[in-house]
């Protein structure tokens, strides 16, 4: 039950973790993250790395679509831009702490380019424009052999930091978590400053936003730039994680995956992004375990894994949109509200 929650200064009221309980939980969570690779085992560490990458990319999409309301169906392509930038720079031996931010920056520039139509078009039309960008970029990935290695792809050497080669999942786990932590905090901070507020204003009622002095075009472009930056960083990290990259890593299906992640998790919230990305990463793994179990009775059940993945994915999207449109984060908040007053009933 929540008691003693009073705030004596505006700074306290505006801070991210208000009560001592919240702070304790956060410290515990961070602690768990730090020791996770040592207690979780290699499979779960692998999953955690993948989740971390997905969380970063999904956060970028949530900034564009959740905060600023600009539908983007091309997010995976921006990841590809970041990844291929990293791969190309890596050929010259540029270290990861330069390639990854640069990958983000190049992605941001492309993202701003793709976001230019948002000046004149909204909603479904903008969705189709970003869809077109996705397919055009895919074409570039497949055809521009000299830079992207074409359909065969490229290899990326493991990241290195003063002789320490980041070779194993355990090592890259910390790099990914560090990036994710910083970028998620940045996104959360956006929401309590004028930049984030202006995005939401553009999303909710852009005419009102203009009258308040917000430059719509600059705002939308900034949202696209930020979202693509996040995607580019996620793409770069993916490059160092998988080490062998082909264009098939950045398909339209992946763009849909991220859109699903932020809708299932909760549009426009940071916690929702984390929940949604984790959920979407784990569901295929759970499914695989279930199907593996089924092979005990039906030996060729494995054939069904791929179609089943699609069916479950589609069904989840539909179910969440119909029954819980505000996503997992809303379920979480309901649970919290219940426990705030427990054992007294609302």
């Amino acid at each position, binding site marked *: 039950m929540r008691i003693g929650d009073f705030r004596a200064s505006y700074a306290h009221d*505006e801070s991210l973790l208000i009560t001592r309980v919240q702070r304790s939980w956060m410290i515990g969570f961070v602690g768990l993250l730090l020791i996770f690779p040592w207690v979780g085992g290699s499979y779960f560490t692998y999953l955690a790395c993948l989740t971390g990458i997905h969380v970063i990319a999904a956060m970028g999409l949530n900034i564009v679509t959740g905060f600023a309301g600009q539908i983007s169906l091309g997010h995976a392509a921006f990841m590809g831009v970041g990844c291929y930038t990293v791969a190309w720079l890596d050929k010259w031996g540029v270290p990861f702490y330069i390639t990854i931010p640069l990958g983000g920056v190049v992605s941001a520039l492309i993202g701003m380019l793709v976001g230019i139509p948002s000046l004149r078009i909204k909603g479904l039309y903008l969705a189709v424009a970003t869809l077109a960008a996705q397919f055009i970029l895919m074409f570039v990935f497949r055809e521009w052999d000299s830079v992207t290695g074409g359909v065969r792809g490229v290899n990326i050497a493991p990241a290195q930091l003063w002789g320490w080669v980041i070779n194993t999942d355990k090592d890259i786990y910390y790099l990914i978590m560090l990036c994710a932590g910083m970028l998620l905090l*940045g996104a959360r*901070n956006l929401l309590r*400053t004028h*930049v984030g507020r202006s995005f939401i*204003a553009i999303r*909710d009622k852009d005419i009102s936003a*203009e009258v308040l*002095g917000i430059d*719509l075009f600059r705002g939308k472009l900034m949202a696209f730039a930020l979202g693509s930056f996040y995607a580019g960083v996620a793409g770069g990290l993916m490059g160092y994680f998988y080490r062998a990259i082909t264009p098939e890593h950045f398909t339209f299906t992946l763009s849909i995956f991220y859109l699903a992640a932020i809708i299932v998790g909760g549009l426009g919230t940071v916690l929702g992004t984390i929940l949604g990305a984790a959920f979407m990463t784990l569901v295929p793994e759970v499914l695989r375990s279930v199907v593996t179990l089924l092979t005990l009775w039906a030996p060729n059940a494995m054939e069904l894994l791929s179609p089943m993945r699609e069916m479950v994915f589609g069904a989840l999207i539909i179910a969440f949109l119909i029954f819980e449109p505000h996503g997992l984060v809303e379920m979480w908040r309901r649970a919290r509200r219940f426990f705030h007053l427990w054992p007294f009933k609302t």
Partner: protein
Amino acid sequence: MNLAPMLSVEDVHLRFGGINALSGVSLQVKAGEITAVIGPNGAGKTSLFNTISGFYKPQQGRMVLEGQDISHTKPNVRAAMGLARTFQNVALFRGMTVLDNIKLGGHNRMAANTLQAMAYWGQSQREELALREEIERDVIDFLEIDHVRHQSVASLSYGLQKRIELARALAMRPKILMLDEPVAGMNREETEDMARFILDLQEERGMTILLIEHDMGMVMDISNHVAVLNFGQLIASGTPQYVRNHPDVIEAYLGVRESQLATGQGV
């Protein structure tokens, strides 16, 4: 006392296809005064506001704010120059709390860039806290909305929402406040509250106010100057007393017969 008008609308013509929304409308809004724009439905009042805000480009005429020609300035730049307005249908941002909505009024004064905002601690935090203090002191206390400041605007009553729209406009530190039907849909008590706030703004802060309103009682009570539009034209302009008895005004609202009865002509 400053005799130059705060806002001057000069001979504005606005056409949509074949419809003349505004025909040669001229209006002077004096600093520190409450000016009301009235007229039957469809007279062009909101079109006038939208033209002043910058959403519509008039085919002819110009607008001058504090001596500067704003006829070709973008809407968000006009806002930075001190033009604040509320809307007929409440245009609050439903995804945010009351406090966040009001803070958006101070958007133009925030100088931190995106990177600084993401880093928060430092310049951005200082600006945010300063803005928060200013809003709490000058706006929230004044409009008596401290009890709802953390609530989502979607859950509030209509009257409160209108007050928050006013709060947001006030947070812009405007030079001129344009209110489009501030008491539409309110009961007597809420109307009196709003009228009191508007008067307080004028008396305590010397605010210049331009408002569109249908509630004649309120208009006649609080305005210093009234302009009447009908079919896109300015048909009368002067003190509330003068306008109330003007034959053209009576004719516009009540018809020719009433006008003749009032002035005693042609009965």
